């Protein structure tokens, strides 16, 4: 018998072991729900799977009586639009500023302290200011995501740029490159895969800021919906919405990972 630390699960066992906790969680939930329903058939805290299914059918497949829209898809669409534009803008800022401050010491000297200070401001504390300045429309929600995520991306990519071996810069100079050429041909292509990695890490924060701003002031969106139906204790809507948000987050993460592997095979193979 091998030592425990040397025993590797086969791929079937691995899949089974991976799914096991999820199945157990569902079973525990089902059991809890049944117990509570037996006590009080009107219980709303732990709705059964049938109720959740009905609620989903209402939200995702039946046009709303008031607006004629399929609410869950509309919510998803507006939330994703905010999330993607916020993260995309933050990524563009993070890449530009991080790369330039890392590559050009004169830039870094003047911007790094400011960025450090900005990154310490809790973004949620700025939300009221954003509402005052940009109104409660789309802009303030996107800006909150940008403010929340960009400083992290800038600092991370600054660090990554500085970490690239000094030898590569010297080598480029001996090949006759000027500063711009070094940035475009040597630094930028090597920072892009690192941008993908940083964006993946910052997605959790981006979702947090999205849900928070939708909860405070919005008329649609996934975060808006769950905070709206909270008033009616509609756990049968909240729970599947949370699961749906999780699934979306997971899919975006996979998409970024696969995209990075496809675009930068040299980066993933060398690691």
């Amino acid at each position, binding site marked *: 018998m091998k030592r425990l630390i040397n025993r590797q699960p086969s791929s079937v066992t691995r899949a089974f072991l991976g799914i096991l906790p999820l199945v157990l969680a569902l079973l525990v939930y089902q059991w809890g729900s049944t117990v509570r329903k037996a006590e009080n058939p009107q219980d709303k805290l732990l709705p059964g799977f049938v109720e959740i299914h009905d609620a989903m059918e209402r939200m995702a497949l039946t046009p709303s009586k008031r607006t004629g829209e399929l609410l869950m898809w509309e919510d998803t669409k507006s939330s994703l639009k905010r999330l993607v534009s916020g993260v995309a803008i933050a990524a563009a800022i993070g890449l530009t500023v991080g790369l330039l401050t890392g590559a050009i010491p004169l830039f870094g000297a003047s911007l790094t302290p400011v960025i450090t200070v900005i990154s310490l401001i809790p973004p949620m504390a700025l939300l009221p200011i954003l509402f005052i300045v940009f109104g409660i429309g789309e802009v303030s929600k996107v800006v909150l995501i940008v403010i929340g995520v960009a400083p992290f991306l800038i600092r991370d990519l600054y660090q990554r740029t500085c970490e690239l071996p000094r030898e590569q810069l010297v080598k480029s100079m001996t090949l006759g490159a000027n500063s711009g*050429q070094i940035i475009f041909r040597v630094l930028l292509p090597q920072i892009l895969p690192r941008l993908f990695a940083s964006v993946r890490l910052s997605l959790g924060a981006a979702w947090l800021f999205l849900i928070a701003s939708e909860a405070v002031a919005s008329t649609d969106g996934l975060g808006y919906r769950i905070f709206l139906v909270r008033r009616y204790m509609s756990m049968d809507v909240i729970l599947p919405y949370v699961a749906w948000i999780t699934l979306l987050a997971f899919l975006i993460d996979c998409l970024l990972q696969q995209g990075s592997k496809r675009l930068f095979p040299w980066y993933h193979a060398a690691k």
Partner: protein
Amino acid sequence: MIEFRNLWKNYDDNVVLENLSAQVGSGEFITLVGTSGCGKSTFLKLLLGTEVTSRGSILLDGRPIADEPGPDRGIVFQKYSVFPHLTVRENVALGREFECGPIFGRVFGSARKAILAEADHWLESVGLTPARHRYPHELSGGMQQRLAIAQALIKQPRLLLLDEPFGALDPGIRKDMHQLVLSLWGQHKLTVFMVTHDLSEGFYLGTRLWVFDKCRMDPQAPERFGSTITFDLPVGKTDRQSLDKIKESLARSAQIPVAV
């Protein structure tokens, strides 16, 4: 062609090189040896332009050398010399692309084709033609160094600087690389400075061997005095005796600890 005039280099109180003077003609192949911390790498950095001299000057063709790296001096480091995001061929072509694409360092169309053809020619001369579409991480250590050499040679630099280029390679591969460097040096009339910590490598490679060591030594303050060239031997005239003499002299100074 290149002249070192009373060269000094110190970091605050720590003198690394002191009063180093020498002249090197075009086409010479100089190997620099010495114990670790003897200043041979610092010397190469001065020549490369990543460090500046504290006193004295380095003249290339009678004019002071630029204080930042430039295309007149090619370099091969022990590692990180090649760009991981470019294929072997693109790595070599890069030097020419920088010349022809002044802003983004990119060229297109027939100009690019000509550059790639030239890159293929250099890859041929270092024996990397079969690997030209691969990425550096797919190459062995020896092949990566071959690539780094081809990459430097496409610019046809006045000086080729090699900073312990084969230190991380297996002995067998190292022999092959010696052959390659010697044949390239002969073919292209290069002027080469090679730093190595392997005395025997320095002993039969090239035309001239420089040993870096301290002439004066204060055991209480080893940083007080710097190194200079203690042996300057034409490689053709070297023999067993002088090898032993150098070894002995290096061993003596190695016994006195060097402050870091």
